[in-house]
C-alpha cells in the first residue's frame, strides 16, 4: 500500500467518523416544535390571501400611473405641443451625452 492509498483510507475512515457523529447529533438534539397540518394550512391560506390583495393593489397602482402618464401626454399634445417636443429633444441630447461620456471613459481606461 503506497502513501496515497494509505492517506485515502485514512480520509475515508475520518469521513465515516464524521458521518456517524453528525448522525448522533441528529438523534440527541430536541425535536423542533412542528406546526400541525391544520396550522400550516391556515397560515398558507392567510399568506396567499395577503399576496392576492397586494397584487391587486399593485395592479391598480400600475393602471393609475399609466392613466396619469397617458392623460398628461395627451394634454401636452393638444394644449402645448412645444413642451412635448422639448422633452423629446432633451431626452435625445441627454442620451447622446451619456453615450459620448461612456465611450470617452472606455477609451481612457484602454489607454491606461
Amino acid at each position, binding site marked *: 500500500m503506497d502513501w496515497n492509498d494509505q492517506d485515502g483510507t485514512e*480520509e475515508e475512515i*475520518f*469521513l465515516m*467518523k*464524521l*458521518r456517524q*457523529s*453528525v448522525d*448522533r*447529533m*441528529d438523534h*440527541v*438534539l*430536541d*425535536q*423542533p*416544535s*412542528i*406546526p*400541525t*397540518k*391544520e396550522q*400550516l*394550512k391556515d*397560515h*398558507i*391560506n392567510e*399568506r*396567499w390571501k395577503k*399576496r392576492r390583495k397586494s397584487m391587486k393593489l399593485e395592479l391598480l397602482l400600475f393602471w393609475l400611473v399609466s392613466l396619469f402618464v397617458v392623460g398628461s401626454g395627451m394634454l401636452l399634445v393638444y394644449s402645448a405641443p412645444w413642451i412635448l417636443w422639448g422633452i423629446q429633444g432633451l431626452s435625445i441630447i441627454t442620451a447622446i451625452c451619456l453615450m459620448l461620456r461612456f465611450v470617452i471613459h472606455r477609451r481612457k481606461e484602454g489607454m491606461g
Partner: protein
Amino acid sequence: MYEKEMNEIANLFVLYLSLMEEGVKMRTEDMKKVKLAQHGDADVLADLIHKHYSFLYKYLVKVTMDPVMAEDLTQDTILRCIEKISLYDGSSAFSSWLMTMGTRIYIDQMRRKKRENSWLLREQGIRRIRWQFESRNEEWSDVLESLAKLSTEHRLAVLLKHYYGYTYEEIGEMLSIPSGTAKSRVANAVRQLREEMS
C-alpha cells in the same frame, strides 16, 4: 468464502437499487403534490411542508450549529416556500430546494450581521448544543467540536458533499458558486478537520 462475499455484494446492490427506487418514487410523489400546490391546493402544500419540516430543521442545525437560530431559519424558509412555490420547477428534489432557500437566507443574515456579533452568536449556539448533549449524558465528540469550529462556508461545503452526498456541481448551484470553488472548499474543510483532530 468467495461465494459469501459475492452474496454480500449482491445483497448490498439490491439494497442500493431498492433505495434508489424508493427515492425516485418519493420524488415523483412530491412532484405531484407540488403541482397541486402550485394550482392553489393549500391542504397538499401543508402536507408537503409538514413532511419536510423536521428534515429542514435538522439540516439547518448542522449548518448553523445553533438550535434556536435553526428554528427561526426553518420558519423563514417555510414562509419563503409558501410565497415562491409557483417558481419551483422540479429540476432538483423538493427537499434540496428547501435546503437551498434555507442556506441562502442564512448566508444573507450572516452577511448583514457584524463579524464580532456572529462570532458571539456562534459560541452561544455551540453552547446550547453541548448542553443538550450533556443533559442526555452523551459525549460531545472531537469531530463535532472541529466541525463547529469551521467557518460557515467550509462547514456547509463539507456537510453537503460528505453527509448529504451532493455533487460539486449541485453544491455550486446551491451556494451560487462555481463547482471548482465548491471542490476546493470541501478539500480545505476536510484538511482543516483532519488537522484539528490530529
